[in-house]
């Protein structure tokens, strides 16, 4: 069952939010010991919200997410609920305020079932960097769910919530959505307020929905979008009705296939499924043409300079003073800060802080940081040019299906390579999504669609048309537990 189906049942009083929420919490109790998608389960809050939602539904007109159990990536500030970012540094941290997106969902009567696991401070591609535990892929418990929003994708795939929110800095929504067989949307930079999203790389971070179908993703995206006076980088542009475009024909839609995304390193199975999906778009009337994004190969290096540089500045605030882990034994203030950071942060976070600090340090700034900012311009220009001629791009999300737990965790370079196809769009700040397009070796594969800034309606329209045509509608993993 999807959120929009559940919403219909709620409004017809065939089920109550309390029943739905109890079922979800029971499901969490069943699968969580094997899956590990949550950092915390907020049962009491959920039941309170479910009761309130049932009252609101009795009283009349409600939002379609009223009474719907939603999971939140644990990088979103949630008032009076522990928000850890998957880090020892923030273990026990209880924010006194809601992130804007959390407040919006709370306001329309959503039910918060839990905070979902992630790579520490959203840095990683497998959720193995969480300081607390790994999350497993619901389709194969020996594999990773992707990351960094691995908990958000795994929870939706395994019915531990109806929909969830993730965040995407270099692919952290699209890649886990692909690995777990669900829909994930990375909105245009600025479309969704980042207020209350714990910052990783501020010029790249964006919050987005993860759902079991395109319609649910559209509903959730609409609910969280919009300008915000608390986020100066949010766009004060009217939020369209994303559901209105679903079901419209994609006849004549121009779809570009970027040749650079189909080169060596792409698994044959993945390639075959993605090309088949593109053929189906053509069958639906889309005009498919090959295009080129010549600077694609430089995106990964650019990202791993810029994102860590921004992170090293953003994470300077964790120094053991105002909040977070603090080495209380230290008698010297500098030692207190350096030792608190050394103990509070995990390996990957430290690696990126070091990388970013190095790239920004005297003598290296021009050759690394400034150079990367210039290459970022070239990557943006590639997209600007192709979008003169096509409406959207279709490509793989990741070069492979979900890899095995432990496979890449000791090799940061290899781990970084799994983001090569999602990073370019993040660098350009454009909109993108991942929609399931089949299974290889029993594991889900996603089709990535990218469009220019604020093209979410076109992307959702195309993804919905594809989803209905291909009939790769969501089916639950068996999760033998």
């Amino acid at each position, binding site marked *: 069952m999807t959120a929009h189906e559940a919403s219909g049942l709620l409004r017809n009083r065939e089920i109550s939010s309390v029943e739905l929420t109890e079922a979800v919490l029971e499901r969490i109790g069943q699968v969580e010991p094997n899956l590990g998608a949550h950092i915390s389960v907020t049962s009491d809050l959920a039941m309170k919200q479910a009761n309130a939602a049932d009252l609101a539904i009795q009283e009349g007109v409600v939002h379609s997410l009223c009474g719907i159990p939603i999971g939140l990536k644990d990088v979103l500030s949630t008032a009076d609920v522990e928000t850890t970012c998957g880090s020892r540094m923030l273990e026990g941290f209880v924010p006194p305020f809601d992130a804007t997106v959390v407040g919006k969902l709370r306001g329309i009567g959503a039910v918060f079932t839990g905070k979902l696991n992630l790579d520490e401070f959203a840095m990683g591609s497998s959720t193995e960097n969480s300081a607390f535990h790994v999350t497993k892929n619901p389709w194969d418990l020996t594999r990773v769910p992707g990351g960094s929003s691995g908990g958000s994708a795994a929870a939706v795939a395994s019915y531990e919530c109806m929909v969830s929110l993730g965040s995407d800095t270099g692919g952290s929504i699209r890649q886990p959505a692909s690995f777990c067989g669900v829909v994930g949307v990375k909105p245009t930079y600025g479309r969704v307020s980042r207020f209350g999203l714990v910052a990783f790389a501020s010029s790249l971070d964006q919050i987005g929905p993860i759902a079991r179908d395109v319609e649910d993703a559209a509903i959730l995206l609409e609910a969280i979008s919009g300008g915000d006076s608390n986020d100066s980088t949010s766009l004060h542009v009217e939020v369209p009705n994303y559901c209105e475009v679903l079901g419209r024909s994609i006849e004549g839609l121009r779809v570009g296939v970027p040749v650079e995304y189909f080169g060596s390193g792409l698994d044959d199975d993945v390639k075959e499924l993605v090309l088949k999906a593109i053929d189906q778009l053509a069958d639906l009337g889309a005009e498919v043409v090959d295009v080129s994004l010549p600077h694609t190969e430089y995106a990964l290096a650019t990202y791993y300079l810029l994102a860590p540089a921004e992170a090293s500045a953003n994470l300077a605030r964790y120094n053991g003073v105002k909040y977070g882990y603090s080495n209380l034994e230290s008698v010297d203030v500098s030692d207190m800060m350096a030792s608190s950071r050394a103990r509070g942060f995990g390996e990957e976070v430290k690696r990126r802080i070091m990388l970013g600090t190095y790239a920004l340090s005297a003598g290296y700034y021009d050759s690394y940081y400034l150079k990367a900012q210039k290459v970022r311009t070239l990557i943006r220009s590639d997209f600007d040019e192709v979008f003169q001629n096509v409406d959207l791009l279709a490509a793989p999300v990741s070069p492979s299906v979900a890899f095995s737990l432990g496979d890449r965790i000791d090799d940061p*370079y290899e781990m970084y390579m799994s983001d090569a196809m999602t990073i370019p769009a993040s660098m350009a700040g454009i909109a993108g999504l991942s929609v399931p397009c089949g299974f290889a070796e029993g594991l889900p594969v996603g089709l990535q669609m990218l469009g220019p800034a604020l093209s979410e309606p076109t992307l959702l329209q195309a993804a919905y048309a594809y989803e209905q045509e291909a009939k790769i509608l969501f089916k639950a993993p068996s999760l033998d537990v």
Partner: protein
Amino acid sequence: MLDRDTVNHVAQLAYLALDDEESSEMRLQLAQILDLFESLSLLQTDQVEPTARVIPLELPLRDDEVKPSLSQDQVLQNAPRIEDGHIVVPAVLTDS
């Protein structure tokens, strides 16, 4: 190209206390990642403007009005050490 002293200097700038083992491992891993960056030097970018943000940013202004904010208790609720409504840290200036 990345020597031990540089790693230790960067760690100091980043306020990260690394032990010897961590520092040598970091040196190897960073060196490998820095190799990846060398590819960027192949690109001619003299005439290219840097991108710091992808959307045009206007400086938002608002009226200077008093509005409710978090209470002192809320602000201090996550502080590791507090005393009389203040955050406590080890002495910044010491005799030594």
